[in-house]
C-alpha cells in the first residue's frame, strides 16, 4: 500500500482556503474528498504485486528441415530466432546437399522461449486445414519438392515431403509456413504460394550448394 501524501484531506482543505464557505458545503466536499482517498487507496492496494512474466506459447523461434537420403545420411537446414519478434537477428544454417539424390524431408517448428521447448509442429498438424508449408527453390537451383501429406480435405500440408536434387548447382530454397492460406486458389496445391493469401508465420531462405 502506497501513501499518497497530496491526497491528505486536511492539507488539501487548507490549501484550498475555503473557510468562508458554508459548513454544509464544506461537509459535502470533505466527504467527497475522503471517499475519493479511500477509493484511490483501495485500488492501489489491489494489484501492487509484481506482474507475472509471460512466456509466449505461440511464438515460433525455431524451424528445422531434416532431409534423409536412402543411405540414412541426414542433412539439416535451420532458422533460429531466439527472441521471437525481438531485435535479435535470426541465425540461419544449411548443410550442402548431394547431387541427384532423393531425400525424405520433414519439418519441425519449436518454441524455445518455453522450457522445455514446445513443439509447434503438433499444433500445425492438428490444424492441418489452416496451414501449409511451401518449398520454393530459386530459378537456378536444381531441386524439386513433392508433398507427401494431406489435410482432412485432401489438400497438401507440407510437413512431410520428398526433395529431389539434380546436377550440382547452388541457389536458395525458401521455406514458408502460411497460416490460413486459400488452399483451393490456383497453383497452391502444387506448392506455389503466389495466390495463397493468409499470413506468413515463418519465412526462411536457405542458401544451399548441391555438390
Amino acid at each position, binding site marked *: 500500500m502506497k501513501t499518497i501524501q497530496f491526497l491528505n484531506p486536511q492539507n488539501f482543505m487548507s490549501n484550498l482556503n475555503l473557510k468562508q464557505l458554508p459548513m454544509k458545503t464544506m461537509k459535502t466536499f470533505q466527504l467527497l474528498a475522503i471517499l475519493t482517498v479511500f477509493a484511490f487507496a483501495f485500488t492501489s492496494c489491489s494489484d501492487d504485486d509484481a506482474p507475472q512474466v509471460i512466456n509466449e506459447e505461440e511464438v515460433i523461434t525455431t524451424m528445422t528441415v531434416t532431409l534423409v537420403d536412402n543411405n540414412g545420411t541426414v542433412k539439416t537446414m535451420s532458422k533460429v530466432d531466439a527472441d521471437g519478434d525481438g531485435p535479435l537477428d535470426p541465425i540461419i544454417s544449411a548443410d550442402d546437399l548431394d547431387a541427384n539424390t532423393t531425400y525424405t524431408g520433414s519439418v519441425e517448428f519449436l518454441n524455445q522461449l518455453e522450457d522445455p521447448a514446445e513443439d509447434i509442429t503438433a499444433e500445425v498438424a492438428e490444424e492441418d486445414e489452416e496451414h501449409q508449408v511451401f518449398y520454393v527453390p530459386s530459378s537456378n537451383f536444381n531441386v524439386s519438392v513433392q508433398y507427401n501429406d494431406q489435410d482432412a480435405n485432401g489438400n497438401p500440408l507440407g510437413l512431410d515431403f520428398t526433395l529431389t536434387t539434380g546436377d550440382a548447382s547452388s541457389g536458395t530454397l525458401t521455406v514458408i509456413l502460411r497460416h490460413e492460406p486459400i488452399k483451393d486458389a490456383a497453383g497452391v496445391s502444387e506448392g506455389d504460394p503466389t495466390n495463397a493469401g493468409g*499470413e*506468413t508465420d515463418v519465412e526462411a531462405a536457405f542458401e544451399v550448394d548441391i555438390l
Partner: protein
Amino acid sequence: MIKIFILPTFLFFSLVTHAQNCNLSLKGYVIDLHDNSVLENASVKLENTSLYAISNNKGFFIIEGICPGEYEVTISHINCKSLTKQINIETNTEKNFSLEHHLQSLNEVLIKGELYNIEDKSTISAQISHETIDQFSNATLGDALSTLPGVSSLNTGNTIVKPVIQGLHSSRVLIINNNVRMEDQQWGVDHAPNIDINSAANITVIKGSSALEYGGDAIGGVIIAEPQKAPVKDTLMGKTILTGASNGRGGNLSTNLIKAYESGLYFKAQGSIKRLGDLEAPDYILSNTGVEEQNMAIGLGLNKIKYGFDVFYSRFDTEIGILRASHIGNVSDLVRAINSQEPSFINDFTYDINSPKQDVVHQLLKVNTFKKFSNFGQLDVQYAYQNNRRKEFDIRRGDRSGIPALDLELQTHNLITKLKYDKFENFSTKVGIELTYQDNFANPDTGVRRLIPDYEMYKVAGFWTANYDHSDNLFFNAGIRYDFTHIDAQKFYFQSRWDERNYQDDFADIIVEDFGTQLLTNPVFDYHNFSANLGVQYNFKAWEWNTNIGTASRAPNPSELFSDGLHHSIANIEIGDLRIDSEQSYKVSTQVKRQFNRWQFDISAYYNFIDDYILLEPGGIEQTIRGAFPVFEYRQTNARLFGVDVNVGYQFSDEASFNSTFAYINGEDTSRNRPLISMPPVNWQNSLNYKIQQWHNLSLLLSSQMVFEQMRFPDDNFTTPILNPDTGDFEETLVDISQPPEAYHLMNFRAEMPFELSFTELQVALSVNNIFDTSYRSYLNRQRFYADEIGRNFVLQLKLNY
C-alpha cells in the same frame, strides 16, 4: 498567415460608409442565452422611434426603414430580463441578441453546475447541432464531427473513427463526455472514442488548447459532448430514432427519455443498439467488418437555483470486426496486399464477427454537485470513475483465437473542484483543482507479451481562468494551468530489446528481476506541464474577430514510452522510448466571422509550433523468423502546423441555401525538413439545401465532398529482398507505404419530411451516401493498403419526438 487576416480586418474598419437615406434595416435572431435556442415573440424596439418588430417562431426579426444613426435598442421577452444595447446603424445591419431568463423561469433552463460551460468568448470553436447528431445516429462520433471545417477523421476501416482536429488526434485531442474527461486508452490510433453518439444532445469542438479547465494537454483541441438537459417542470419527454442502412444490412435503434418534476428532480434513461454485418465496397464485400453495439445510460439529479446534484452511470459496449485481409504476417504479405488492389479474403456477406476484432466495454459512474453563493459565485465538485476494458482478438493458432491477444483494464478515478467568482457583471474568474488516479492492468492470461504494461498514474492539476468584458464589443479571457504527472510502471523487456535500446547505461537501476530472456523493470517518471492562454474577441458591426495565443504541454502517453511489439495490421514493429519527455505547443489562431444580408462566412487560420513533438518514424528493418519488418520508433522532433478553415453560406431565398466548407493544413517536421505524416489532405465540401414548404416542409439536401490528393508526405519507403514466388528468387523490392491515394469526389443526397401526428412528431429521412458508388481510398485510413472504402449506402431514418 496572420498578416493575411489582419489586413482585411483593417480594411473593413476604414470602409465604413455613410448613407443618408432612411431605408436601412436591422435584422437578426433573438436567442436564449442558456441553450442557444431561439425565442419567439420577443419584441425588438428602437427607442425614441416608432420602429419595432416581433420575432417569429424561428426567433427572426427585421426592422426596416431605419435612418442612419445611433440607436438604443430594447429587446424584451415575457420570460426574460429586458436588454438594452447601443447600436450604430450605418448600413443594413444584422445582429443577434441573447436574452437572460428571469429568475423565476431561470430554473427551466438552468439545470446543472456549469462545470464545463463555454464562457470564453474568444474560443475558436464549432458546434454540431442535435439535428446533425441525429442524422449520424447509426454512425460514430468521428463521422459526425468530420462535417465541421478543420475536423477530419483517422480511420481503421469504416467503423473505427477517430476525430482529428487541425491535423492532430489521439492523446492530443481531449474528449469531455458528460462533464468527464474520457480515459479510454485514447493513445491508440485504432482506438475509437468510446462514446455513443446518441447520448449527446450537443457537441462542441474547441480548436486548440484554449479551454484550460478541461486539461492542459489539448494540443489539438477539445471535443465536448453534452447530454440532453432536463427542464425544471413536470414533464416526460423523449426521442426515438430508428435507422436502417443498406450497406452493412443493419441499423440502429436509439431511445432517450427524461422524466422531470417542478421540484427540480429528474430521471434520465438512454439506450441504443446497433447491428451491422459486413460492409461493402463497390466491387467486393469487406469481409469481417461487422459491428455490434449496446449502450445504456441512467441518471438522476436535482436542480435548484442555488444548488443541485447529478448522479450518472453509463455503459458502452462494442464489438467491432477488423477487415480479415488486413491481418498479415510480414512485409512480403504487405507488398502482396499493396500490389493486388483487392483484399486477399473476400467471403460471402455475414453478420458474424470473427477474429481479428475488438471488444470494448467502457463504464462511467459520476457524481456531481454544485452550490451557488449570492454575491460570490459557485462551487462545483465532481467525482468520476471510469472503467475501460479493451480486448483485441487476433488470428491465432491452436484454438487461441477465442483468447484475446490484448486484454487491458484501465481504471480512472477523478475528482474536480471548481470555484467560480462572478460577483461583477463584466468580470468572472475560476480556480480549480483536479486529482486523478489511474491504474492499468494488462491481463497475463492472453499468453501474449503486454503491449502496454501494468502502470499506476497520479495526476494533480490546478488552473485559473478569467473572463473580462471590457465593453459590449471587446472581451478578454486568460488562463494558466499546471499539471503534475507521476507514472509508476512495471514493464518486461526482452534482454535483447533492452540492449538494443542501450537502456543499460541510463536505466540499470530500474531492473527489478532478471528472468533469463526477460527483465522486469520498474520505470518511475515525473512530468511537470505548464499551459497558458490569452484570448480576445472584438466585435465591430456585423464583424466578429477572435484571436487566441496559447501554449500547451503534454506528457508522453504509455504507448510512446513503452510500446514494444509487432502490429499485424500494418506489418511493422513499434517501439517506444523511456527517454521521451513532454512536448510543448505554441499556437496562435485567429477567426473572422461576418454576416451580410444573404451571406455569412467564418474563416479561421492558425499556426501551431510544437517543441519536442512526439512522432513515430521509421528506423530500419528487423529480421525475425517471420521475415523482415520495418521498425517504427517513437522520437521527438520539432514540428509546425499551419492551416485555414473556411465556412461560407449564402441564402438564395427562404427556400434555397448554399453552404461551402474548405480546410487546408500544412504540417512540417522542422528538424528534418520533411512533411509530417498523416496530415489531412485538402477537403472541400459543398451543399445545396432546398425546402418546399407546401410539400409538407420537405427538405432536400445535395452535398458534394471533394478530397484532394495529399501531395505533402514523408517518404518512409524502403527496399527489402522479397521472394518472387514465380522464379523462387529474392528480388530487391520497393515497399511503398508512403504514397497517399488519389483524390476522390463523393456525392450524397438527403430528403427529410416531418409529419405532425396526434401525439407526436415523426420525421422521416432518406439519404443516399456515395450516390455514384465511387471506389476510392482515403489517406487517413490505416486500411488503405488492403481495401477500398465503402460504396453506395441507402439510409432510412424514422425519428419520433414525444
